């Protein structure tokens, strides 16, 4: 009986302990984060140009962006396209790599390190690789596909230089860094209790069955994680377009974060850029809150389901 009472008592204390555990982060957010975040919100209502004192113009930035700015909608559309395709594809490839590299074959450490390489090599080197692969005239991919093109009597694909394919090409290029999410999946795979596999073995379950009934369900926490983070990250896609296509051709890879960057660095329009940042925050927040509902399909070993 005494033990039950102590559990009830602990539940009461939990509120305090919860805040205590979260306190370093909460303290950082409120003391170090609050002022800059508030200032950027304030800037979004001004014509701040990073040099002169900002002048308050209320909702003018928001009005202009939403009603009289073609590039705003264009870049938002491009970004949505990117999010819808890149997020699921990224999860799939990351999972695939993790399954591939979770074996216990010889040299697996070397393979994993090699697969992770693109996450650490210099951006210039990656750019060059992509160009050598995808360049329509001399790129390796088009060279390999040449027989196919001739067979179907079609024009070689223009990849990142073709405005209908450029977004997809950049998504493909982005998959080179799937090694990052692979690491998270691999880490999660180690958390799956080995006893579950052992009892499945006793039942004579096949590799495929074990994967569907044990591995995948128990991977859902990290799949869910990569999904939410993929959403947040993909809405801010920028670097790859900046280095590969410069937003082109015909602004087909001009993403929202790219436009925001240009507003700030090229137009010196920090006020407008801040307004864009807050609009983006609202959009991503709404999408994320909906996505968080998928949490109920996530299987946590530590919780009742």
């Amino acid at each position, binding site marked *: 009986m005494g033990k039950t009472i102590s559990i009830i008592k602990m539940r009461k204390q939990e509120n305090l302990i919860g805040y205590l555990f979260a306190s370093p982060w909460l303290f950082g957010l409120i003391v170090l984060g609050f002022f800059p975040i508030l200032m950027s919100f304030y800037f979004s209502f001004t014509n701040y*140009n990073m*040099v002169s004192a900002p002048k308050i113009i209320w909702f*003018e930035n928001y009005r*202009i962006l939403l009603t009289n*700015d073609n590039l705003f909608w264009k870049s938002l559309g491009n970004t949505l396209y990117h999010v819808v395709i890149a997020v699921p594809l990224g999860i799939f490839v990351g999972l695939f790599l993790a399954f591939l590299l979770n074996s216990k074959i010889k040299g697996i450490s070397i393979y994993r390190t090699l697969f992770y390489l693109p996450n650490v090599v210099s951006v210039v080197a990656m750019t060059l690789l992509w*160009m050598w692969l995808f360049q*329509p005239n001399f790129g390796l991919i088009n060279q390999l596909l040449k027989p196919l093109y001739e067979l179907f009597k079609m024009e070689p694909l223009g990849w990142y230089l073709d405005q209908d394919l450029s977004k997809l090409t950049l998504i493909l290029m982005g998959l080179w860094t799937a090694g990052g999410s692979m690491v998270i999946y691999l880490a999660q795979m180690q958390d799956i209790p080995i006893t579950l596999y052992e009892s499945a073995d006793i039942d004579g379950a096949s590799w495929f069955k074990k994967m569907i009934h044990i591995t995948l369900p128990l991977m859902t926490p990290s799949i869910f994680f990569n999904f939410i983070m993929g959403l947040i990250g993909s809405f801010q896609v920028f670097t790859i377009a900046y280095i590969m296509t410069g937003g082109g051709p*015909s602004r087909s890879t001009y993403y929202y974060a790219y436009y925001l960057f240009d507003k700030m660095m090229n*137009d010196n329009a920090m006020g407008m850029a801040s307004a864009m940042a807050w609009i983006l925050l609202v959009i991503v927040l709404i999408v994320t809150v909906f996505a968080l509902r998928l949490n109920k399909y996530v299987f946590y070993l530590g919780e009742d389901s």
Partner: protein
Amino acid sequence: MKKFLSILLLGLLSLALYGCNDDTPTDRIEITFWHMSPVGSASFSDTRRIITEFNQSQDVYFVKGTGFSFWDYWDKIAVAISSRTAPDIGLSTIDDVPIRAEAGVLYNLSELIEADPDGIEIDQLYDSQLSFATYDGHLYALPFTATTRVLYYNLDMFTAAGLSADDVPTTWSELHTVAKQLDIVQGSSIQQLGFDPTYGNATYHGYLWQAGLDFFDEDLNPTLNTQGHIDVLQWMIDFNSEFTRSQLTAFGDANTMLGINPFAGERVAMMIEVDSLYQTIKEAGADFNFGVTSIPVPDDGGIRVNWGSGFSVEMYDNNKNTPDKKAGAWEFLKYLMSKDTQKDLSETNGWIMAHQGAMLEVAEGDAIMTRILEEVAYARDKVYVPYAPSWHGNDWQSYYNDALTGKKTAAQALADARANYLQKKANWEATR
């Protein structure tokens, strides 16, 4: 293990908190100076020597220089200016001096010059550059370097094609005739290209100026919709019409994405580039004969002009009321702008400095440098457009590409670009 870890952390923590060993002598006034020669860059040691020589020349001030990579400098100085923690003296771009002058972050140099008339040899500086550094009738910056664009030509390729230095073109039609004789094609792939108007550092507005046109009128309204504008763009598009645009891009792409120059890589015979390419070729020890000349002009009424710009040197007013630092920065500014220092900087970095007298001495005996210097006098800087500071770059790029790749006709691309500038202008005015 745990003990080791905690000792390591404590050690690092104390290292992190350990203050910097400030090398400024305590009896001197420290002046901070930001430049673009970071530790490790080719020009670092000479920049440091030049600063040290100043520090040894007097005993009141002590200049502390910090160098940043060209690519990082702009972020760093922008954050510093906006937070009022800018260095006492630093470099920036000359075409947007007025925006900083208007905001009150720069010291008025005209006042300092008035009080110290012999400090700066103003008459040695280019008038066009000085006018960019002037706001409301006062100088707020001084031109530090100058840049210019010239036509580079590969003499070896000329010789191989049976041409000589006498055949170097001066007009657009000559340029076309000569360029065609220098093309080398094998099957469907280009081996060597005579010239392409889109290669190198050539710009549409540069060609417009040569034809007596411009992007904007005096009130900064975009023009772009005349037949003249269309013709110039069409000329650029059609110059190599026997090749497809993707062939031309592929030929240029392979090198430009690496930051390597098609002319220096001996792929094109003639190319418009900035003056620094000369330095690059020289330093790399390339072994081909080449020369430079004025950019060819349109046949009828062509104007000899090229796009040139430069860095400015400015004194930042951080609103901290520090007259002694201001006086020190002024002393150092005079030193930087003196003939000897300017000559020194040019000789060690290969830059074209703003001081004309110094440059004449540097170029003595160097035919190419002398020729480049001649063109500086014909350099014109781009106008600062507050509603589209990047009008020549990002704002224009996508329309330009659409026209080049044939997605839009020249007329359509120009009309669309103009509509975009007009929208930007209206939106900018709405936020004033």
